[in-house]
């Protein structure tokens, strides 16, 4: 069996879907965020596969940007979760129902 770009894409889409399902079904803000990180890394796999397939260096370059932005996002996200925890002692999103209507 020869492993082609399509196998990597299937893997990428599977991981992306798992991450998306995690975001929709989980209730813990931290786990939701981890699922989003899984989605981002699935995208990285797709970028690398396409970069290899098209023999273009840009795909690899974009992955570096995605990694760096994901780190910045993690920092902001953790900061927000900490400030929520200080006020409410919870990280569960279904306990956050102040804003409704």
């Amino acid at each position, binding site marked *: *069996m020869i492993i082609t770009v399509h196998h990597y894409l299937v893997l990428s889409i599977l991981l992306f879907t798992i991450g998306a399902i995690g975001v929709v079904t989980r209730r813990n803000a931290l786990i939701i965020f981890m699922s989003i990180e899984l989605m981002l890394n699935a995208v990285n796999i797709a970028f690398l596969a396409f970069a290899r397939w098209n023999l273009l260096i840009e795909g690899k370059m974009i992955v570096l940007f995605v990694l760096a932005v994901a*780190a*910045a996002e993690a920092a902001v996200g953790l900061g927000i979760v*900490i400030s929520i925890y200080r006020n409410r002692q919870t990280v569960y999103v279904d306990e956050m129902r102040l804003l409704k209507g």
Partner: protein
Amino acid sequence: MSINAISILVLFALAAAVALGIVLISALLGSGRKSTEKLLPYECGLDPIGSPRRRFSVKFFLVAILFIVFDVEVVFLYPWAVVFREFKAAGEGALAFTVAAVFLGILLLGLVYAWGRGALDWEE
């Protein structure tokens, strides 16, 4: 399928067999009696002190957040370092250096801010 791929598969099969085998053998031969000693988490032979589910200071989170940002942003210096010699050879070394210096300057600004706001002070 190449011979390499087959050997890797064989290795996987062996590893799985050993892992499963050990679990099965200990389940078959073991007495199943539980004692305090056995149920304790293994900490290099020492008795554990207190539960691991302790709340720890929010300062750890702060340090972790700062670490992850500064750690990952440095990833951009790797490709820069790889091509720097080429730029130097092409007579564009000063330009490449300036670009990296601007980038590091922005990071430095972040560091000064974190420092000035006391995010790096462990003792308060």
